C-alpha cells in the first residue's frame, strides 16, 4: 500500500437499538455513530471469493479523498452517507444486519485509489464499493471491476458524472444516482445560449474529469452550431493560493461571453478570483463536483468585497437545494445531520478541515446512502453479491423524497436526471430562477 493510505480502518456503527435498550444509555441516542478501529480484516475466515456480507455486518468499501486540496469533497460526501447509515443501524439495520464501512484515503489520486480498491476487493472482501470520489480515480478502477466480474462486485453511486461508468464497456459494473456531467454541461450551455451568450470558454482540470466536462460542453455547443471559444487547463491538485492568471489571460484572449469550469473547488476559486482581478467579468459556471460551499468559503473568507468575486458565479447541482425545506428528503437529511453530525475518523484526517453543517455534497451522500439502504433491504435475508443487480433493477418509480422518482433497469443505470442551477445571494447558494434577469 502506498504512503498516505490508512490501512485496516473499519468504521462500525456500534449501537443497535437492542444494545441501546440494554445499556439504558438514552443519551447515546444523540451519538450512536460511535467509531471503532480494527486492524484485522473485517470478515475473518471467509474464503477468497466469498461475499463480504457473510458475517453480521454488511461491509461497504470506500476509497475517497480525505486528504489533499479536494478533501472537502470526500469528507462531505461521507458525512451525508454516514448520517443515513447511522440512522439505518440505529433503527435495526438492514434485516437485522448493520452496515459498516471500510474506508481508505486516496487523496483524489488514481494510483492510491487503484491500490485501495484491490485491497478492498481482495483482502477486505467488502460486499460492494460505495462513495468513490472523482473521475480520474473511478475511471482507473472500472477495468478492475471488469477483470473481477465473476465476483459480482459493483460500484454504487460514485461522486462523478463522467461517462465511462455510464456506458460500455464498464457501464454494467456501476450504478449511478446523480445526473451526468453531460447533462450538467448541456444544461449550462443551453441556458447560456438561450440568453445570447454563445461564445463559451472552458477552464478545466487536465485529467479524465476535466476532459469529460470539456467533451460535454463541446457536444452541447455543437448542437447549437458553435465551438468552444477558448480553453485553458490546470494540473490536478492545484491550490487556491496558486495563480491562475495565465489561464485567465488565455481565455480572455478568446473573448468568451461565459466560462464553464470543470475542476475542484480550490482551482476554480483561484480562477474566479484571478478572472475578476484581471477584468474577465463574465458568468463563471461550475459543475456539481466542484463543492459549492467550499468554493464559496475560499472566495469570501476574510474579504470585504467578496460580492464582486461571487456575483457572476452559477453552479449546477445534481441534488436540490438543502435550504428547500419543502422537499421531504431535505428535511430528513437536515434532521439526521443534526442528530448524528458524523465526522471522518481521526485516523483518516491528515489536514484540518471544518465540516459544513449542510452542503450539496453531504446531501448527495445522504441520498446515495438512502437509496443503497433500500436496495440492500430488497435483498432480504439472502445477501449475496450475485443478487445485487436484480435488487437494483427492482427499484422502479421509487420515491427518494426529492420529487423525481427513481428507476433502474438493464438500460437505465442512472437514477436521477435533474440538474439544478444555483447562484450566490447573501453569501450562500440559492436556486437560480431567471437566467435572463441574472446574466443576459
Amino acid at each position: 500500500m502506498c504512503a498516505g493510505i490508512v490501512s485496516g480502518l473499519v468504521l462500525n456503527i456500534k449501537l443497535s437499538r437492542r444494545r441501546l435498550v440494554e445499556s439504558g444509555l438514552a443519551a447515546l441516542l444523540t451519538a450512536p455513530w460511535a467509531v471503532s478501529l480494527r486492524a484485522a480484516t473485517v470478515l475473518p475466515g471467509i474464503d477468497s471469493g466469498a461475499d463480504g456480507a457473510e458475517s453480521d455486518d454488511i461491509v461497504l468499501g470506500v476509497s475517497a479523498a480525505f486528504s489533499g486540496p479536494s478533501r472537502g469533497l470526500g469528507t462531505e460526501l461521507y458525512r451525508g452517507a454516514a448520517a443515513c447509515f447511522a440512522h439505518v443501524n440505529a433503527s435495526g439495520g438492514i434485516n437485522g444486519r448493520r452496515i459498516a464501512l471500510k474506508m481508505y484515503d486516496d487523496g483524489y489520486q488514481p494510483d492510491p485509489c487503484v491500490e485501495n480498491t484491490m485491497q478492498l476487493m481482495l483482502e477486505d472482501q467488502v460486499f460492494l464499493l460505495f462513495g468513490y470520489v472523482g473521475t480520474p480515480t473511478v475511471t482507473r478502477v472500472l477495468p478492475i471491476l471488469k477483470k473481477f466480474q465473476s465476483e459480482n462486485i459493483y460500484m454504487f453511486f460514485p461522486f462523478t458524472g463522467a461517462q465511462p461508468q455510464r456506458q460500455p464497456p464498464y457501464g454494467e459494473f456501476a450504478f449511478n444516482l446523480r445526473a451526468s456531467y453531460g447533462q450538467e454541461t448541456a444544461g449550462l450551455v443551453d441556458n447560456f445560449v438561450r440568453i445570447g451568450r454563445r461564445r463559451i470558454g472552458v477552464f478545466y482540470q487536465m485529467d479524465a474529469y476535466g476532459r469529460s466536462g470539456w467533451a460535454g460542453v463541446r457536444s452541447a455547443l455543437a448542437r447549437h452550431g458553435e465551438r468552444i471559444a477558448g480553453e485553458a487547463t490546470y494540473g490536478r491538485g492545484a491550490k487556491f493560493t496558486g495563480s491562475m492568471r495565465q489561464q485567465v489571460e488565455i481565455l480572455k484572449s478568446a473573448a468568451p461571453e461565459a466560462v464553464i469550469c470543470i475542476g475542484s473547488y480550490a482551482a476554480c476559486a483561484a480562477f474566479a478570483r484571478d478572472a475578476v482581478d484581471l477584468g474577465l467579468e463574465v458568468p463563471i459556471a461550475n459543475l456539481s463536483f466542484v463543492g459549492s460551499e467550499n468554493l464559496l468559503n475560499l472566495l469570501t473568507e476574510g474579504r470585504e468585497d467578496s460580492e464582486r468575486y461571487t456575483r457572476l458565479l452559477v453552479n449546477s447541482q445534481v441534488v436540490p437545494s438543502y435550504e428547500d425545506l419543502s422537499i421531504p428528503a431535505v428535511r430528513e437529511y437536515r434532521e439526521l445531520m443534526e442528530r448524528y453530525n458524523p465526522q471522518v475518523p481521526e485516523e483518516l484526517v491528515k489536514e484540518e478541515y471544518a465540516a459544513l453543517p449542510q452542503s450539496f455534497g453531504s446531501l448527495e451522500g445522504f441520498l446515495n446512502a438512502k437509496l443503497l439502504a433500500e436496495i440492500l433491504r430488497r435483498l432480504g435475508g439472502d445477501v449475496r453479491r450475485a443478487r445485487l443487480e436484480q435488487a437494483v433493477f427492482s427499484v422502479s418509480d421509487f420515491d427518494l423524497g426529492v420529487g423525481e422518482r427513481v428507476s433502474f433497469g438493464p438500460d437505465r443505470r442512472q437514477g436521477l436526471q435533474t440538474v439544478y442551477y444555483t447562484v450566490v445571494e447573501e453569501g450562500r447558494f440559492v436556486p437560480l430562477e431567471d437566467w435572463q434577469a441574472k446574466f443576459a
Partner: protein
Amino acid sequence: MKIEKLFQRTRFGIFAMFGAIVLSTSILCVITVSTEISAEYEINTSNIAKTVANSSVDILLNRDLATLQSLVDQFIEIQGIRYIYITSETGDYLAHTFVPGIPDEILASDHRSTEPVERDLPGLGIFLEVGSPILAGVAGHVHVGMDLDVVALKIQRAIGQQIYLVAVILVIGVLAAIWLVNLAARPLGELLAYAVELARDGDPEALADRAVLARNDEAGHLARLFLYMARNGKEPGAMSPAPQPAD
C-alpha cells in the same frame, strides 16, 4: 640508490599510451552512447505513439474522451515523454496534456504529420515529436513529444559513468605500471649503490655481505662480477672466463 633517468621515457610512454586509450575510448563512447540512447528514445517514443494510437481506436469510436484522457495521462508518466496530444480527423484536439493551454506552435502545426520533428516550445523546452495515425488517419492522429533535455541528461549521465570507469582504469593502470617499473629498477639501484661503495672503499671483503650479491638475477650476476674483479684486481677487459651464474 634511486634510478631516476633510466625509465623516464618508459614512464612517459605509459602515460601517453594510457592517455591515448582513454581519449579514444571516451570519444567512441560519447558517439556510441549518444547515438544509441537518442535512437532508443526515438524508437520508444514512436512505439508509444503507435500504442496510444492502437489503444485509442475503440475509445474514440465509443466517443469516450474521458477514458481517452485517462489513457493519455498514464502514458505521460513514462520517463522522457513530456506531452501527448490526440487530434481528430478534422484537427480537433480531443485529448492532450498541456497546461495552461495548447502552445501556439502546436496549434499551427500540421496535425496529420507523422514525421519526427524537433519543436522548441517557449517556456516548455525542446522536444522531439513523433506522430502516429489512428486507423490509418481516418480516426485522427496521436502525437508524442519527447523531452530532449531529459534525453541529453540521460546521455550525459551514461557518458559520465563510462568515462568515470575508464578514468579509474587509467589511474589504476598508471599506478600499477609505475609500481612495476620501480620494481624492475630496484635491483639496478642496489647494484649501483654496491658498485659505488666498492669503488669508494676498495675493500671487497668488507662489502661481501651486501644483499645484491645474493640475488639470482642479472643484477646479482653483475654484482658478483664486480666483486670478482675487485678481488683479483683485474680490469674488466682482462677478465676471463666470465663467472657462471650462481644457479
